[in-house]
């Protein structure tokens, strides 16, 4: 009878999975290392920016916003400025080109600023950023393009730098502590500009609460993790969604895979993620990407499939190529649905952070996890509240972006 007892015979499913993972790591270990390094760099940079914004970074962001505002009206001068700025940054990063340039220019250019801010050396990256910013403002002034907006951005940049210097006595190169209030103001302003004054006021109050319960740096660390994970998830999800919308075969294959990704307990992803990327933020990001990606794919596919067939036909009938139909008709018309998917991705990503905290991803998840292990209800609750505040902030912000999509504007025009 012994031959009967093991029925059904044990199938080594788990062992097979393990063996497959080992095989993957043995053969593609280098690839995983590269991915891990890139993700780690992205999360760390974003977290550092959110907790301790550098004047250099703020300047680069202000310049980038100006470039986006101006590039359509005057592409050539703007692209020249952007290109040479990038070249200077690359030169500085590889062989300190900026330092060489600064050292060879007349000292009078910099001495007054060094004196004013009590500086002993010149930060080349900051100088490059400021030069680019000034050049863009000059372009805007000469060609008279969107002057109020440009003035607002440049003025805002100046105000932030001066704030950091005057209020906190910080040197503009590194706006020192406490930078939380500065970043909180910046995020609230972003909310106000994108979603209106209600969310602006909410952000002001709620983010101040986060600072006061001393969870700010944890919250920013979580925000960095969620943003990086969501960005990766969206970048993977949208192309898959597009392909699935075009091909029924792909759609039929992708659907059960997505179901599996979404219903598999999220903890399970952590085990192989740790196996490939060891502890830290990276396995947290990877597990979050896997768990949060499905709605991005699904809603992209849905968004494209639900477009009126006649409109796509119109594109074809006037001789548009498939690429032009995709970028000129399908994606703009599907944008509000795709953005709803992005919103879902971010929300699912936030729901993963506590779990990611278990593998040392840091941030609010870590706080909650500590709350559990130390039986510290106060800590757990504070961490949880901070997660909720982040969730509301991100949800309303992405919803507002959805409302500003071309399709949504067209629908409002009809009403």
């Amino acid at each position, binding site marked *: 009878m012994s031959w009967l007892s093991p029925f059904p015979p044990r199938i080594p499913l788990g062992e097979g999975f393990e063996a497959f993972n080992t095989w993957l790591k043995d053969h593609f270990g280098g690839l995983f290392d590269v991915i891990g390094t890139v993700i780690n760099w992205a999360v760390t940079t974003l977290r550092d920016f959110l907790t301790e914004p550098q004047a250099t970074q703020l300047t680069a962001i202000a310049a980038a916003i100006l470039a986006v505002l101006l590039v359509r009206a005057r592409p050539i001068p703007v692209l020249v400025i952007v290109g040479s700025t990038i070249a200077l940054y690359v030169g500085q990063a590889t062989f300190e080109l900026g330092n060489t340039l600064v050292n060879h220019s007349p000292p009078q250019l910099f001495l007054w600023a060094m004196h004013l801010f009590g500086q002993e050396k010149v930060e080349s990256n900051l100088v490059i950023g400021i030069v680019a910013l000034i050049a863009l403002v000059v372009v805007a002034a000469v060609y008279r393009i969107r002057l109020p907006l440009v003035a607002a951005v440049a003025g805002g940049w100046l105000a932030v730098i001066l704030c950091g210097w005057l209020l906190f006595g910080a040197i503009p190169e590194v706006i020192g502590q406490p930078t939380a209030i500065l970043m909180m103001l910046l995020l609230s302003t972003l909310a106000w500009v994108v979603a209106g004054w209600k969310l602006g006021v909410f952000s002001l109050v709620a983010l101040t609460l986060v600072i006061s319960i001393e969870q700010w740096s944890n919250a920013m660390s979580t925000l960095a993790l969620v943003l990086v994970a969501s960005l990766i998830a969206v970048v993977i999800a949208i192309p898959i969604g597009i392909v699935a919308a075009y091909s029924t075969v792909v759609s039929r294959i992708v659907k059960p895979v997505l179901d599996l990704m979404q219903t598999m307990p999220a903890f399970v992803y952590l085990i192989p993620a740790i196996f490939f990327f060891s502890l830290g933020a990276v396995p947290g990001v990877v597990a979050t990407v896997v768990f949060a990606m499905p709605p991005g794919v699904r809603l992209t596919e849905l968004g494209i499939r639900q477009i*009126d067939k*006649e409109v796509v036909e119109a*594109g074809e009938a006037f001789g548009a190529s498939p690429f032009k139909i995709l970028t000129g008709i399908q994606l703009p018309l599907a944008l509000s649905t795709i953005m709803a998917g992005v919103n879902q991705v971010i929300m699912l990503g936030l729901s993963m952070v506590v779990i990611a905290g278990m593998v040392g991803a840091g941030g609010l998840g870590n706080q909650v996890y500590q709350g559990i292990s130390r039986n510290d209800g106060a800590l757990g609750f504070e961490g949880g509240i901070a997660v909720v505040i982040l969730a509301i902030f991100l949800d309303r912000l992405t919803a507002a972006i959805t409302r500003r999509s071309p399709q949504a504007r067209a629908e409002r*025009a009809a009403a």
Partner: protein
Amino acid sequence: MPAVRANHLYKVFGKRASQAVALLSDGRHRDTIKDLNVTAAVIDVSFEVQPGEIFVVMGLSGSGKSTLIRMLNGLLPPTAGTVEIDGTDITTLSRRALRALRGEKISMVFQHFALLPHRTVLENAAYGLEVRGVSRAERHERAAHALDLVGLGDWKDHLPNQLSGGMQQRVGLARALTADTDIILMDEAFSALDPLIRRDMQTQLLQLQAELGKTIVFITHDLNEAMRLGNRICVLRDGRVVQIGTPEEILNHPADDYVARFTEDVDRSRVLTAASVMEPAPKAEAADWERVAPDAPVVELFQRVAACDSPLAVVDKEDRVIGAVSPTTILSALAMPEEASSAVPSLANGTRREGAAK
């Protein structure tokens, strides 16, 4: 050379399409090949459209007319047969060449307008040129001109959803006109509009056609619309051509009972012209009668013929009398043609007999 020529076109959806084509080309009805699990939308359709003509394809829903028009610009590849545009067989063209040909030679107007809701009226009208890579300034100028033609010059910066249905369809028409193609396909273009607006749009289309001389293939399920617009009409039934002819031919000599039943609802006085109802006139007396042009529709003759004691004289361009129209001629012309009117009741008998034979 015809602008559009359809040559034994078939469109069958389903895996065993070629087998179905072989059966259908033997004259089998599409309902008899249901066990092949195919849908035969268009069966053995051939016609030619001359440059500058309005060619109307008329049929009820399911008659294959939308499928047919989509084969004319290659949106659907035919299962069998060929489509020639200005002598080029488009069924052999590569995708790229087909796109280029659509951009240059054929544009299309859609039933539900198919405008891009996120673009302004002007940008929508300029779409065809944008696809072809025409510079922004030039395409906007030409689109603005086309919008002026359809009477929407003041609505350039609005979004399509801010316009009424009729205005949206005029944007659709302007988009086709801006593309400046010789051939325009119109797929039930006015069917979604209110009756009054539909009439206005028909009038406007006729005016534009007279001005610009485009070749138009127009699809409709409404025979009145077909009669009003068409130089020639092609009647489709269950995917096959039943009759191709001028409105008057269809009205006076319907090919079968099916067409005859359609013509019952047609306002004959708007289709028939003085030339088509007139009788031979005694030239001597007719010289004093009131004169009408041969292409005047009968509906315009009622009052004049009633006001005169004598019949009306139909005269050609050189003022030569070519016929006469009296109240009696008009009345007898407006009555259903005999063969058609007697055919209607026999239709029921016919089907019953067929049923009995089985």
